[in-house]
């Protein structure tokens, strides 16, 4: 592969695509604004194909698993069967209410999704049992705050101490908000500098191995 196609052209494309979006923010030029709007449409389309690439990849990996009769290969057959059924019905029948696709989502996907999330309650409780030992000042603060917030959101907390909901609100609106703000500002500065590195071609790990 030539260096132009594998390195220079992608970097030039990244620079151009990023530069247009920055210029469009400051410039009132009609053509640049139109072009940046086109780019926004384009990125949705390319992003859609990227998700399909993920589905193609999982299909390929699962098919190889089945073909080679690796451990637990029958589960991969189940995965491929449900992937095929939902995709075929979605493409040919549609995704509206009352379709097979909708039925599969409402009665199979959604219950499993909420069960997976609800199961985390057990794992959080188990992790808390191991981690919540007031051995240091920091761990004690975390333990006390978590207890106040949990009790402050249920009737039992109000029964124990009538001002507990107000204390919870104060924690959420002042100390918690300040940390969230600090993290948001720090992360935003980091994201902006990383974006600049990508546009200028300093950060190239997204191109993969050469």
């Amino acid at each position, binding site marked *: 592969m030539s260096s132009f196609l594998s390195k220079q052209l992608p970097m030039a494309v990244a620079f151009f695509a990023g530069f247009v979006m920055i210029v469009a923010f400051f410039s009132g030029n009609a053509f640049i604004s139109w072009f940046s709007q086109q780019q926004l449409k384009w990125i949705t389309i390319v992003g859609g194909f990227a998700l399909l690439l993920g589905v193609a990849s999982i299909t390929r990996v699962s098919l190889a698993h089945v073909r080679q009769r690796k451990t637990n290969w029958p589960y991969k057959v189940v995965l491929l069967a*449900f992937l095929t059924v939902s995709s075929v019905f979605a493409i040919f029948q549609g995704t509206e209410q009352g379709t097979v696709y909708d039925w599969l989502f409402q009665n199979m996907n959604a219950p499993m999704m909420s069960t997976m999330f609800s199961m985390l309650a057990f794992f959080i409780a188990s992790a808390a049992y191991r981690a919540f030992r007031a051995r240091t000042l*920091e761990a004690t603060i975390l333990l006390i705050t978590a207890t106040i917030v949990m009790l402050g959101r249920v009737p039992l907390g109000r029964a124990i101490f009538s001002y507990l909901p107000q204390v919870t609100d104060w924690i959420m609106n002042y100390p918690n908000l300040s940390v969230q703000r*600090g993290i948001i500002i*720090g992360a935003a500065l980091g994201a*902006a500098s990383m974006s600049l590195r990508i546009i200028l071609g300093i950060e190239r790990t997204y191109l993969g191995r050469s």
Partner: protein
Amino acid sequence: MSESLVNFLQVSVAGFLTLCIFSFLYKDNPFYRLAEHIYAGLSAGYYVGLIWHAVILQQLWMPITRDGEYTLLIPGIMGVLLFTRLTEKLSYVSRVSIAFVMGNTAGISIMQQLHGYVLPQTGDTISGLLGAGSWFATLGAWIIFVGVISTLIYFYFSKEHRGIFGATARVGIVFIMISFGAHFGYTVMGRVSLLIGRIRFLMFDCVDSFKHLIN
């Protein structure tokens, strides 16, 4: 098929899969793995359906064929080129499409992060320091100010945490622990609420649909 039978079948499928997932609490087992793979397959299929209709048909195929927007052929071709990643020899061709996505996202991100997060959050942090209406609100504004500065200093690793810098970082960790504790509490409440919902579904919805079927 009667309505109660259809309802019973729907609830039974959802109930069986819910129990399969919950069985993992005992240990990893074939029922859990079956549900896990069904979930993975359906989730992937869900995205296929979503992208086919919302992106490929609505944003690519119809604008080209109906409105003659031929410029959309460019992202269409870039999207197809992404699939060269599946072949080892031609995978480098997909880099142009990936670079387009990365560059475009980076360009949007710079302005979005600075204009949408850094400046407004900084402004809100310092705006109430010299009087926010009442002494309580001004005190709150100062608490937020100290929390923001000390949190930022705690996460600044380019300078050793010593002296005043270290002391401020230690104040930062106190604020961070309060915030993490609050988030932990909120997350636990959210998950327990979901758990109650699933248990209610198993105890009432499933049993009720069975009773309806019998009656």
